């Protein structure tokens, strides 16, 4: 489905928060590197998807009623073969039925595990009353949560603007590599920032979004989790 259809469907169903696979699909549509993720409705289907995208994978519950997936046993990491995937599928369904009995279950997301290493960053977007679409960049974890070390730009954002945003944060040097860590692929990150600005401009129904975390490697940047919030109608 294209972004417009995904958004329309969510609004028709009265949802203002897109499901994770929907959000990932939209981000991917705009050309950002994502950790491929598909929705499975059965253990068999989950295993088939895992075979296709490659191991190891992670399974996550998809429900409009659950926002803290780990708390209800809705996430299982590091699955290395068909059998483990099928077991995990059933286990997630059981956990959720026990821990969040009244939640609607859409299915289970099968997602390729992020490779080890890399640096976690966040790219966000929001719609400001005065300036319209705005994008944000920062490093993940304590940098964003405790130090609020982030930079902003009003859309449209050029590739150069995006590179500039990365230089503006106080922790910019971490992206350049330190000790034995090589520098991250800033061009790929810049593409994600530009894409975020563009998708906000082209989809006025979106109120705000977080791509958090994005894992930045020396040769690529992968969006691992995405949250897209629509405007309340």
């Amino acid at each position, binding site marked *: 489905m294209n972004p417009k259809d995904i958004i329309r469907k969510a609004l028709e169903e009265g949802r*203002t*928060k897109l499901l994770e696979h929907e959000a990932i699909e939209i981000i991917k549509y705009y050309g950002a590197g994502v950790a491929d993720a598909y929705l499975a409705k059965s253990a068999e289907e989950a295993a088939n998807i895992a075979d296709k995208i490659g191991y190891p994978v992670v399974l996550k519950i998809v429900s409009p009623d659950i926002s803290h997936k780990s708390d209800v046993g809705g996430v299982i990491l590091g699955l290395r073969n068909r059998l483990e995937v099928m077991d995990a599928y059933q286990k997630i369904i059981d956990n959720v039925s026990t821990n969040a009995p009244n939640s609607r279950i859409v299915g289970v997301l099968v997602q390729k595990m992020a490779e080890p290493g890399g640096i976690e960053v*966040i790219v*966000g*977007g*929001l719609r*400001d*009353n*005065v*300036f*319209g679409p*705005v994008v*944000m960049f*920062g490093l993940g974890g304590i940098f*964003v949560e405790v130090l*609020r070390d*982030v*930079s*902003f*730009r*009003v859309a449209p954002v*050029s590739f*150069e*603007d995006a590179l500039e945003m990365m230089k503006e944060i106080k922790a910019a040097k971490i992206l350049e590599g330190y000790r034995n860590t090589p520098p991250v692929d800033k061009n790929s990150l810049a593409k994600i920032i530009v894409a975020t600005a563009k998708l906000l401009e082209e989809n006025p129904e979106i*109120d*705000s*979004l*977080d791509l*958090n975390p994005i894992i930045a490697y020396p040769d690529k940047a992968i969006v691992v989790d995405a*949250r897209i*919030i629509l405007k309340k109608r």
Partner: protein
Amino acid sequence: MASRESSGMEAFFNPRSVAIIGATPKEGKVGRVIVENFKRRFKGRIYPINPKYEEILGLKCYPSVKDVPGEVDLAVIVVPAPIVPRILRDCGEKGVKAVIIISGGFRETGTDEGRRLEEEVVEISREYGIRVIGPNCIGIYDNWSGVDTYFLPDKKMKRPPRGSISFISQSGAFASALLDWMAYNNIGVSRAISYGNKIDVDDIDLIEYLGKDDKTKLIIMYIEGLKNGRGKLFMEKAREVVKNKPIIVYKAGKTARGSKAAASHTAALAGNYDIYRAAFKQVGIVEAESFDEIGDFAKILLMQPLMKGNRVFVVTDAGGIGVMLTDALTRQGFEIPVTPDDLKNELREVLPPHCIVENPIDLTGDADDERFKLVLERVLPKPYVDAVILGALPQIPGLTNRFIDYVADVWSKYRKPLLVIDIGSEEAVKFKVELESRGIPVYESPERAARALKALYMYSKYVLRGGI
């Protein structure tokens, strides 16, 4: 929309005739101060309007603007809020196209009545195609045409000399304080506008007008917030203006956070001020973070040419100032290059052996005017020098008034960013006044000088890369 933005602004600044509605001869009243202001400087026709008087301060007074025999280009309204709609309608009937509503008592009161009155005023102005500044504002001070609706008496608020700085202020009190301060500091002003509730004319119209105004070389803005949905257009217009003249913005309300319930991390993190800062930066607006910086930045941007790189040379008669400057400049990201051999040799030829030719170049406490001149002549023109700061403490015996002539002469030959640090009492103030009258900005602290140079550098960088 595009035509509306730019149209009709001229009548506010260069009217041939003005009606002052609510004029009065009563001492201490706003309606009197404004008549006095216009009488003092304005060359066009002045029509006081008040049904209670035949004559005010020697001018024939009319019961209504509709009774004025000739055309009225600008009307200034100072009557109580409840009758403003009726008065505005009279202006519409008369064919007045520009109105400044000084009166308060509208939306800013937070009452239903105030809001209703303001909406009525908006409707009437649209119906007749009247451009409105205000309500709840102090309006315009124009140093060329003599339009002066600042209702602060001449004795309480000094009027600055003519000059090339214009400013736009959401706050009337700040605008009048700034004018008074500029008058006291002998800083020349072109036009100053305070727009209050901005029901029509706002920041965008004004930067567009001042952008095209050849009497304005630099714009200072005090803003609390732009109207919803106007941010993009503001950025677009500012980007155009900044190519030709700097805009310095002081954004008030830095600490308030958006009230948006935070459904996402990003929404929780994005303070309103963060977004304004990003927007300013994107279009090359220079942000002053404090009141001091407004003046500090204005003078360097006005007096000095663009700075082409970030390499700064320091020449001082006091080693301590050299170290302080090195710290302050480094903190702002400037490079303080080591003196290249060719320059070292040139300097050694003209300086006594105890002087230090390494950057920061220290001419020491026995320096005199000539020593500064010889060094500045050699340093300023070098291609690897983007700016020079002179740390010239006037307390040393060798420094006299000739220093000012020398510095100004060398500077006018090469026209590269040059500023002076000058700390002290009467002697220092004398130097400062003289140097600044010759176009060389002077700062009292190394830190403020470094911040000002950074403002020039950032502005230059933006303009030189073509405004992107």
